[in-house]
C-alpha cells in the first residue's frame, strides 16, 4: 500500500472479513508471534505520523490490551510481560486507578502505556478510560485483562478468535464453561448463580460467568461502551447493556489462575452492598431507555 492511499482503503484492510482468515490460521498455531498477522494495519508505518488521522498516534497495533490496576505494583510487571508474550503485536495500556503504590511507575518501566487516574474511580471507570483510549487511537479490538494476574494471557487468543471470525462483538472469558477449575467459596458461588439467573432474564442470553472481567470487544462494542459503561461493579450490568443494544455476545472457556498477590476488588465487608447494588443495576439497566442504542 502506498502512502497516497485514502483512509478508507486503510480501513478496508482492517475490516475483519479481509484479514480474519489469515489471522485465524495464525491463531491456531501455538508458537508465539502469530499475532503479528493481526496487525496487517500497521502498514501505515510508511506514512509519517502527521499524515494519519488526528487521533491515531504512534501505536502500531490494532489490538489494545486494557489492564485496569489498583495497587498492583507487585503483580503488574508480570501481567504486562505475560500479555506481551502472548499478544506480541498488541499494545498494553495499564490504567492506574488512583493507586497509592508504585503501580504506574512499575508499569511504565515494564514498557506499557499508562494512564493514571487522579483518584480511584473503581473498575468500571478504569476500564472505560481504556476503551476511550481505544476509540481515540483507532484500535480494532480491545481486550480487558485484570491487573492482578488472575487472567492467563495465554487464553487471550481464545477471546480474539470469535471476534476475528466475525461471530461475536463481545467475547467473555468464562470460568464456568467446559472443564471447571475454579471453585469459588459457597457464598460467592451463590451470588454468582443469582446474577447468572438475573442476567439470563434481563439479557435474554445465558451467560454463565457474568462477573468475569476477562473480555474482548470489537470496534463497535468499544465505541458503545466508551460512552456507556457502568461504574461500580460493572461486569454483569455491561452484559445486559450490550445485549439490549443488540450486540452479539459469546462466552468461551478460559483458564483462570488464583490471584497472585493483593486482594479481590470485592472485600467481604462490601459483599452485602455488592449483592444489592448489582441486581439493582441489572434491573435498572433492563428498564433503561436512555443510552441504549448503538451508534
Amino acid at each position, binding site marked *: 500500500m502506498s502512502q497516497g492511499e485514502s483512509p478508507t482503503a486503510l480501513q478496508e484492510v482492517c475490516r475483519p472479513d479481509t484479514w480474519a482468515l489469515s489471522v485465524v490460521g495464525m491463531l491456531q498455531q501455538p508458537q508465539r508471534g502469530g499475532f503479528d498477522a493481526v496487525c496487517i494495519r500497521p502498514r501505515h508505518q510508511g506514512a509519517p505520523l502527521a499524515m494519519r488521522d488526528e487521533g491515531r*498516534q504512534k501505536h502500531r497495533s490494532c489490538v489494545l490490551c486494557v489492564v485496569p490496576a489498583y495497587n498492583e505494583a507487585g503483580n503488574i510487571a508480570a501481567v504486562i510481560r505475560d500479555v506481551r508474550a502472548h499478544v506480541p503485536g498488541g499494545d498494553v495500556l495499564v*490504567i492506574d486507578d488512583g493507586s497509592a503504590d*508504585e503501580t*504506574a*511507575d512499575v508499569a*511504565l*518501566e515494564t514498557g506499557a*502505556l*499508562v*494512564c*493514571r*487516574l*487522579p*483518584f480511584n*474511580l473503581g473498575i468500571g*471507570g478504569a476500564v*472505560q*478510560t481504556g476503551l*476511550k*483510549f481505544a476509540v*481515540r487511537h483507532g484500535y480494532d479490538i480491545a481486550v480487558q485483562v485484570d491487573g492482578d494476574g488472575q487472567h492467563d494471557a495465554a487464553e487471550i487468543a481464545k477471546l480474539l478468535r470469535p471476534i476475528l471470525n466475525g461471530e461475536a462483538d463481545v467475547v467473555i472469558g468464562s470460568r464456568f464453561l467446559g472443564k471447571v477449575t475454579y471453585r469459588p467459596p459457597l457464598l460467592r458461588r451463590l451470588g454468582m448463580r443469582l446474577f447468572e439467573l438475573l442476567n439470563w432474564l434481563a439479557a435474554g442470553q445465558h451467560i454463565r460467568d457474568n462477573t468475569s472481567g476477562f473480555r474482548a470487544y470489537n470496534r463497535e462494542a468499544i465505541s458503545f461502551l466508551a460512552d456507556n459503561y457502568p*461504574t461500580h461493579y460493572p461486569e454483569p450490568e455491561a452484559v445486559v447493556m450490550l445485549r439490549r443494544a443488540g450486540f452479539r455476545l459469546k462466552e468461551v472457556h478460559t483458564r483462570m489462575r488464583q490471584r497472585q498477590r493483593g486482594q479481590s476488588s470485592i472485600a467481604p465487608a462490601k459483599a452485602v452492598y455488592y449483592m444489592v447494588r448489582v441486581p439493582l443495576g441489572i434491573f435498572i439497566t433492563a428498564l433503561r431507555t436512555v443510552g441504549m442504542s448503538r451508534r
Partner: protein
Amino acid sequence: MLDRVQLTAILASIGIIVAVIDLMRRGRLREEYSILWLVLAFGMIGLSLSRALLESLAQLTGIFYPPSALFAVAFIGCLALFMHFSVVISRLTQQTVTLAQELALLQQKIGSGEAGSRASAR
C-alpha cells in the same frame, strides 16, 4: 388573628426566603437551586396565612389536625429538595468521572506518564 403556629411558620418561611435571596445575592447559591427553596417557602406562607386554604387541604388529604397539613407540606417539600440534591450529586459524580478520565488520557498523550512523575500527576 394569627395562631401561634401560623406565626411560627410564617417567620420560618420568611427566614428561608431572606437566607436564599442573600445567598444568591452573594453568588453562593446558583439560581437553579434556589427555585425549589423559594417555591417551598412561598407555599408555606400561603398556607400559613389562609386558614381556609389550609383546612381545605387538610380535608382533601384526610389530615385530622389542619396545622399538621402545614408540616406535611414542609416535609414533602424537603423530600423533594433532597431528591433534587441526589440528582444533582449524581450528575456531578458522572462529570467528575469523565473529567478524571479525560485528565488521565491527556496526561498520557502529552507524555507526563513517565516514571517518576508521580508527584506532578497528583
